[in-house]
């Protein structure tokens, strides 16, 4: 019996690179001590990182499954585990277990479609995995639009990658916006939901939404206004995950357990859930 793998027991991960994305977001690269990727995953899945003695916390895996060398996590500082993670230096070991939750249906529902990614702030983190997956298997998808907004230019996560890689890809359009005017910013200014409406996308796309609840609420409304159906829109509720295995009793919204049935939900599925998220 004790030979069985126990999902709650993590493996050791080594932080091999730390990138400062914004004043409160850092991206950590994690491999096993022998330099391998800790486990395989699909876009949208999460992993439990922990520092023994400090605690465990669930994060979406921001790197693409197509990256076979390592995993990356973009993590915003909020709470004691993330604070500790932010104070780490390269070479620090942590523990990691996963992958948890379902994934975006990248190979089924998404296949062959035009993709519209809409993210606000740290909400880009879970989408980055999907975006890079779609970019990797570019021919499986149609046109890719990315709408991404943040409070300020400094708060745009992965700005370098967005500018230097994404926006240079063929068939990928990146639409950036920030909440308020800034002298060094010559791009769009305004909130994401409005920007989405302004951009006025054709409605034959799959939209993936991620960001603060208030942004999701208004963007979804905006998408519906311009003709999207809720069945075309996906989002992730990963913030509710605690134990990762759907047993600890916290992650359920109604009868659905985010750890097992989510975190990725189609917006019409969410409508069937009681209003508790």
């Amino acid at each position, binding site marked *: *019996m*004790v030979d*069985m*793998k*126990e*999902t*709650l*027991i*993590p*493996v*050791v991960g080594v932080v091999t690179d730390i990138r400062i994305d914004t004043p409160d977001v850092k991206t950590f690269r994690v491999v096993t001590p022998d330099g391998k990727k800790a486990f395989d995953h699909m876009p949208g899945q999460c992993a439990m990182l*922990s520092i*023994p*003695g*400090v*605690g*465990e*916390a669930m994060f979406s895996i921001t790197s693409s499954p197509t990256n076979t060398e390592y995993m990356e996590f973009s993590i915003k500082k*909020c*709470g004691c*585990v*993330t604070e500790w993670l932010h104070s780490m*230096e390269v*070479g*620090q*070991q*942590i*523990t990691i277990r996963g992958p948890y939750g379902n994934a975006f249906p990248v190979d089924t529902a998404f296949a062959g479609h035009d993709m519209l990614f809409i993210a606000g702030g740290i909400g880009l983190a879970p989408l980055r995995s999907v975006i890079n997956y779609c970019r990797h298997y570019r021919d499986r998808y149609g046109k890719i639009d990315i709408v991404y907004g943040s409070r300020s230019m400094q708060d745009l996560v992965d700005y370098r990658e967005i500018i230097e890689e994404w926006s240079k890809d063929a068939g990928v359009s990146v639409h950036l916006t920030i909440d308020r005017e800034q002298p060094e910013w010559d791009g769009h200014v305004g909130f994401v939901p409005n920007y989405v409406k302004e951009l006025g996308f054709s409605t034959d796309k799959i939209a993936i939404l991620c960001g603060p609840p208030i942004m999701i609420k208004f963007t979804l409304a905006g998408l519906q206004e311009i003709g999207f159906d809720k069945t075309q829109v996906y989002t992730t509720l990963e*913030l*509710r995950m*605690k*134990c990762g*295995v759907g*047993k*600890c*009793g*916290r992650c*359920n919204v*109604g*009868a659905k*357990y985010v750890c097992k049935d989510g975190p990725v939900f189609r917006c019409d599925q969410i409508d*069937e*859930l*009681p*209003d*508790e*998220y």
Partner: protein
Amino acid sequence: MRKISLANLDALFAAIAAEETLYLPQDTEKGAVYAEWCEGATLSNALNTVRSPKDFFFPQTENLMDFKVEGKSIEIIDTRKECEDFVIFGVRACDVRSFEVLDRVFLSEPVDTYYKNRRDHGVIISMACTRPAETCFCQTFGIDAAAPEGDIVCHKTEDTLYLDAKTEKGETLLARLSALTEECDTSAVEAQQALIRERMAKLPLANLSASDFGADKTMEFFNRPEWKELSQSCLGCGTCTFVCPTCQCYDIKDFDTGHGIKRFRCWDSCMYSEFTRMAHGNNRLTQVERFRQRFMHKLVYYPTNNDGLFSCVGCGRCLAKCPINMNIVKVMKTLGGKDNG
């Protein structure tokens, strides 16, 4: 079916304990509790124990693993050990059912090996209830107090204990005890069952029905205004969840011993205000939501995910122990329309 004279009960216990650790309900000044049998220990006559037997499989706290941290490096130590065989004697029908409820959580993928370890090594000897209490309502959930489930089922009469193995585990154990027991027919047991069923029908909660609740009824009950009134005097303590045989919410925490980290799991309660507090906030902000969660889980969410099986077994512990006497019966009577009005 086998039987043994009650006069020989000690011999039976001794024989079981000779090979496996035997736990049975024993009386204390503060009620009956499951305790390890030792020479001279006697079986409690109480209807049920104060705490449920879920501890045997899902203890209040358990160490999951250890860590050694040195400088920047971490060593993970798997502290799991194969559990020793044990026998729990005298489990009531409601509590036996609770194991099934827990199994469906912990043995579903990904399997909880800590739970499975103990479950695999435990033998359950159940006992029919001849004197149910006014707080009993197991029949509401289709449990027959006269015919409990379990590896071995017992019926205790004035002078005899009847044992009937129901599983392979039970057969094995009973076979080992065959020298002490003798084969018998089922007439005495059947007579007792008839008496129990007659008594059950007369209980004050005999007519409590769960038919209004069950799978896929989330939207029917979630936004009911009565939740507010029902929860208004709830203290937000964890009594109901901790005495409940099926409540299984837990928390995983780390403890720094000064020379290593212990990661342990402990019971948690969805009634606690801090239960769902996470870095980003708390999604069950008031006691209304927390209270609703507990009862919706028992009566709707769990059945939705588990083929209609309720995760309340009607043991009545929360009725007896809630400091303010709010309980699932009152919730069912308030919310469940046609049958409980």
